[in-house]
C-alpha cells in the first residue's frame, strides 16, 4: 500500500496535497482498501466553505457509508466532477484521478495537525492492529 511522501494525512484518512494556498484532498489508499469498492461519492459544491474536522462529503462502498472529513478549513474552489459517475477512480487511483476537492486554505497553521507519510503509516499500523 502506498503513502506518497509529498502528501499530508489526517486521522480520518484523508490526504492533502499543498500547492501554494490550494490544497487538493482525497482519501488514502488505506481508507479505500478498508471501504472496498466505492459505489457512491457525494462532494461539496464549489464555493462552499468547509471546516476542519467537519463532514464535507460522503463515500459509500458495498460495505458501508462513511463521511469524508475536511482535513483543513477553507473555501472549495474545484471538485472532481468525474468522480460521481466513475466512483471506481477512488479505488483505482486514490492519489491521482480519485482526488475529490480543491480548497483554498484559510489557516495554514492547521496543516501542522496533519501527519507526514511516515507518521501516517505508523498510525495506520496501530489502527489496523
Amino acid at each position, binding site marked *: 500500500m502506498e503513502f506518497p511522501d509529498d502528501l499530508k494525512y489526517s486521522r480520518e484518512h484523508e490526504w492533502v496535497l499543498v500547492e501554494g494556498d490550494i490544497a487538493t484532498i482525497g482519501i488514502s489508499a488505506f481508507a479505500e482498501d478498508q471501504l*472496498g469498492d466505492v459505489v457512491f461519492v457525494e462532494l461539496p459544491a464549489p464555493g462552499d466553505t468547509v471546516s476542519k474536522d467537519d463532514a464535507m462529503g460522503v463515500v459509500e462502498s458495498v460495505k458501508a457509508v462513511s463521511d469524508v472529513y475536511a482535513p483543513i478549513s477553507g473555501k472549495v474552489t474545484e471538485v472532481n466532477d468525474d468522480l460521481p459517475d466513475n466512483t471506481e477512480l477512488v479505488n483505482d487511483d486514490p492519489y491521482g484521478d480519485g482526488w475529490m476537492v480543491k480548497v483554498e486554505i484559510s489557516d495554514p497553521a492547521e496543516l501542522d495537525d496533519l501527519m507526514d507519510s511516515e507518521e501516517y503509516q505508523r498510525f495506520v499500523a496501530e489502527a489496523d492492529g
Partner: protein
Amino acid sequence: MSGPSRDKQAGLLLDEPLIFERNRPGQMGVDVAEVEADGLLPAELERAELEGMPEVSEPEVVRHFLRLSQWNLSAATTFYPLGSCTMKYNPIANEAAARMPGFAGLHPMTPDGLAQGALELMAELQDMLAEISGMDAVSLQPAAGAQGELAGMKMIRAYHEDRGDPRRRVLIPASAHGTNPASAALCGYEVAQLDGNAQGVVEPDAVRRAMSSEVAALMITNPNTLGIFEREIAQVAEIVHQQGGLVYLDGANLNALMGVAKPGHIGADVLHFNLHKTFSTPHGGGGPGAGPVGVRQVLADYLPNPRIVRRDDAWAWSSDAPKSIGRVRSFFGNFGMFVRAYAFIKALGGDGLTRATQMAVLNANYVRARLQDTYHLAVPGLCMHECVLTDRNLEGTGIKTLDVAKRLLDYGFYAPTIYFPLVVSGALMIEPTESESLETLDEFIAAMEAIAVEAAEDPDAIHAAPVRTPVGRLDEAKAARKPVLRWRADDSAGG
C-alpha cells in the same frame, strides 16, 4: 447473456429465466374474453398491445414463481445466524393462532363492543410487555422498531418541552443500534457520539464528560451491537438523570435480557420492543414488524393516543390523554403480530422466557468459544446473545469477511451479518438465537472451520463461491454503480 443451460434445468438445482424470457407467442393461461374498450378510456390512454408482456402457459407461470420461492433462504429453510437482526424461528402455533377467523378477519373499524376479545388480547399483551421490561405502561401502536424509536424520542421531546426546558442534544454510543441517530435527528435533536472503551462498553466517565443541561437523552442499546452487556448501565443512567436527562433503551436486543433483567429496573425511562425479534413474530419480508413502546410513569402522559382502557366493565378506545404525542399510525399497530407474540409469551410462560434467554446466550457463547481461535474475536470475554468475530486471522490468505459469507452459502447456511457493527473491521456478527440445537451449531462451526482451512490451502475456491447456488458471485460494486432495475423489451431483443 445466454439462456439457461439444460444441465441446470435438470435435477433439483433449477435455474430459472425471467418470466419475460419464457415468452412463447400464442401461449396463454386463462382464455379471457376480449373487451371492447371503446369509450371506457380516453383515446390517448388506449393501447392495442401491451409491449413485452410475456405469453406463458398457466403451469409454467406456477412453476416459475414456485421455483423462485424455492431460492429463498429463511429461518424455515436453514440456520440463519444474522446478528443484530435476530432471525429466530417463528413457531407454527403462532401462525395457527393468528389465522383463527375471529382474529384474521377482524376489521380495524369494528365497533369496540364487537372486538372485546381483540382489545383484551392487546391490553394483556401490553401488561405482559410491561412486566417483562419493568416499565409502567406500554403502547402497541408503533408499526415497527424504527417507529417505536421515533415515538419514544417524541415523548422525550414532549416531556422536556412540557417542563419549559427544551434541550437540543442526544448522546448515542458508537456501539448503539444503527437507527438511533436517525430517530434522534428526525426529532430535531443534534446527535453527539460517545466512544466506548477498548471493550466497546460505555464508561460512566465518558457520559459524565458529555452530559450537560443541554442533553435531552442518552440512547443506549443493551446489550450493545457488539453483543456485550453494558455493565455500567445503572450508574450511567444515574448520571443522565442527575442532570435532568432521560434514558432511551433500544430494545432490539431484549432477547438477551427477557426474563432475566428488566430495563426499567436498571435506569431506562423508555424503550421499544421488536416483537419480530424477541417475541418470534415473522421478520423482514415475512411479515410486518411491530415496535411497541414502553415507558416509566414519568412519560406515561405522553404515550400515543388512542389507548385501550377499561370503561363500564368493557374494553374501549380512548383519546382522552391531552399530553399525548398523538397517533403515530392510522390504525393500532400490526394486529396479527400481537396475536403471535401473545401466543409465544403464553406458550413459554415466565420460566420459559427466562430459559429462552439463557439458551440464546449459551448458544452464542458456544459458537464464540469454538470459533474464537480460528477467527479473531472482536471483544475478548463472554458475550450475550451474539458474538462478533473478524477476518483478522485470515490475513495473508487474501480471504476476507465477504468471501467467508459467500462460501457459507455453499455449506448450506445463511451468512451472518457482515461489516457491522461499523466499529469492528471485517466483522462477522453471529446470532444463533435460542431456536437452534447443538447439532446445528456444530454443523455451522464445522463449516466455518472448513472455510478457514480452505482459506489457507485453496483460497481460489472461496473466491469463486458461491457455486452451489442458482446464481454465482454477483458483482456487487457494478450492481450498485450501474443498477439495472427493470426489464425492457429492447434488452432481450439485443441479447
